[in-house]
C-alpha cells in the first residue's frame, strides 16, 4: 500500500487501518470521487440545503 494512502489515513485520524483496510479506503474514496464529480457545482445562490434548523423554546 502506498505511503500516500497511509498519510491520507493518518490525516483523517484513521491510524489503525491495516494495509488491507487502506486498500479499502482507496477503493471507497475513488468510488466516492465518481459520485462527487457528478454533482453540479453551479446551483443558484438561493438553493438551500435540505436541513432546516429550528430554534427551540423550552420555557413554556
Amino acid at each position, binding site marked *: 500500500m502506498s505511503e500516500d494512502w497511509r498519510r491520507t489515513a493518518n490525516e483523517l485520524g*484513521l491510524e489503525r487501518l491495516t494495509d488491507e483496510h487502506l486498500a*479499502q479506503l482507496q477503493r471507497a474514496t475513488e468510488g466516492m470521487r465518481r459520485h462527487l464529480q*457528478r*454533482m453540479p457545482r453551479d446551483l443558484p445562490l438561493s*438553493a*438551500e440545503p435540505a436541513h432546516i434548523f429550528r430554534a427551540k423554546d423550552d420555557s413554556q
Partner: protein
Amino acid sequence: MSELAYLTIVEAAALIRARKLSPVEYTRALLERIERYDSRFNAFIKVTPETALAAAKMAEGEIAAGRWRGPLHGVPFALKDIIDVAGVATTAHSKILADNIAASDAPVTARLLAAGGVPLGKLSTHEFAIGGPSFDLPWPPARNPWNPAHFTGGSSSGSGAGLAAGFFPAALGTDTGGSIRNPASLCGITGMKATYGRVSRRGVAPLAFSMDHIGPMTRTVRDNALLLQILAGHDPGDPASADEPVADYSADLGRGVKGLRIGVIRHFYNGDVSADPEQIAALEAAVKLFAELGAEIREIRLPPLQDFSACGQIMLAAEAYAVHARWLKERPQDYGARARERLLAGAAIGAADFIQATRWRLQLRDAAAAAFRDIDVAVTASSMDPACRIDDAEALLSTYWRQARMPFNVTGQPALVIPAGFSGSGLPLSIQLVGHPFAEAMVYRAGAAYEDATDWTRQHPPALAA
C-alpha cells in the same frame, strides 16, 4: 404446519378474533418451523420463544375475555436487529454492538406490542444496515428461501427471508438507500418505505439520519397497509417525525385503478440502466395490466437515475461516517470487510461537498415533484435483476447501482415493492409503486389492484410449501 406458516395477517386476525385459531398454537407452530428450517436461511439472529409464548398467552386470554385489540392481536412478528426491544441486544449484526442491550423499546416496537403483536425475535441484517452479505461476522448472512445459494437483498435481509420462508407474517425493516425494498424484490414479498417522517426512527440504530426510514414488510399489500396503520404517527421525540394526519390505509384497497393516472418511469430501467429482460417484461406486463384495469398510463421523466444515486450515496456516506468515525478509528478490525469499505467511503467527503449534496437533493426533490404533478401514482423498477448468487462478489457490487430505490430516499416519497412474477430460474421479480408524499393510501390502492389481478403473492418457495 404450512397452512399456518403462510397465513396472511388478515386471515390470521379473522381466525383469531373468531376464536378458531389459538395465538398460542399459532406461535408454537411458527417457532417449530423456525427451529426446523432457519439453519438453512439464517433469518434470525435471536429467537425469543419465552417472550413470544408469554405474549401469545396474554393475547389469548384477552381475546377470550372479549378484549380484541385489532388485527395484530395474537399475531407473530419479528424485527430487524437494529430496532430496540427492551432487555434484548440490538446487535446491528455486528461484533461492535454484540452486547448492546437496549434499555427500552423503540416507539415502533412499542406500537406493535401495544397492538397485541407477538414478538418472535431479532432478524439478520447487513452489518449496521450497510455492509453485506458478510461471512466474517459473528452471525451468518441470511439466504434466499427461493434458492439458498442466492442473495436475499439487503439490508433487511432476515425480514425478507423470514417472510418468504413462512416464519412470520409481519416484520419491520429499515430503508436508507432501498433496504426494505431490495429484500422485498429479491425474496418475493411486499415492502413499504413510507414518506420520510411518517414512521418514528427513534430507538433504531441510525445509518443516515436524513434518509433513514422504518417500515412494514409483509407478504401482501393488505397486510402491509394494516401494519403501517399501527406504525404511522407523529413522534415528538423524533425531530424528523411528521405531524401529519394518518390516513386509513385500508379504506381504498378495493377501489381498483379505474380512472387513476399512472405514470411510468421507464427511463430508470430501460435507458439510464438496462434491466434484465425478464424484469423489463414483468414491468411492461404490469403497465399493460394497469391499463386493462382502467388506469390512464402516462410516461413521465425524472432526472437520470445516476443523479439520484450519486446524491444519495454522498449523503448516506457522509452521515454514516459521522456515526461510525469513532469506531473506525479505534477498532476498524471489528467491522466485517464489506461494511468497513462502504463506511470508509465517507471519510474524505468535505463539509462543503456534503452541504452541496444537500442542496442538490432539494433540486432533485423538486424535479420529481414536478414530474409527479399530473399523476396519482407511478410504476417503475426496484431491482434491475433477479437475485444473484450470494458468493458472486461482482454481481453483489452491481446491486448498489442496478436499482431504482435510492431516488425515493432522496425525495422522501412513499414507495412500495410488490411481487411481479418469476424469472426462468424461479427467482422473484418485482415492481415498485411510488406516490406523492403522505399518499401511502393511494400507493396501496394501486398495489392491491395489481395484487388482486395476479397470483404472485400466493406462491411460496417450492421446497417449503409442502
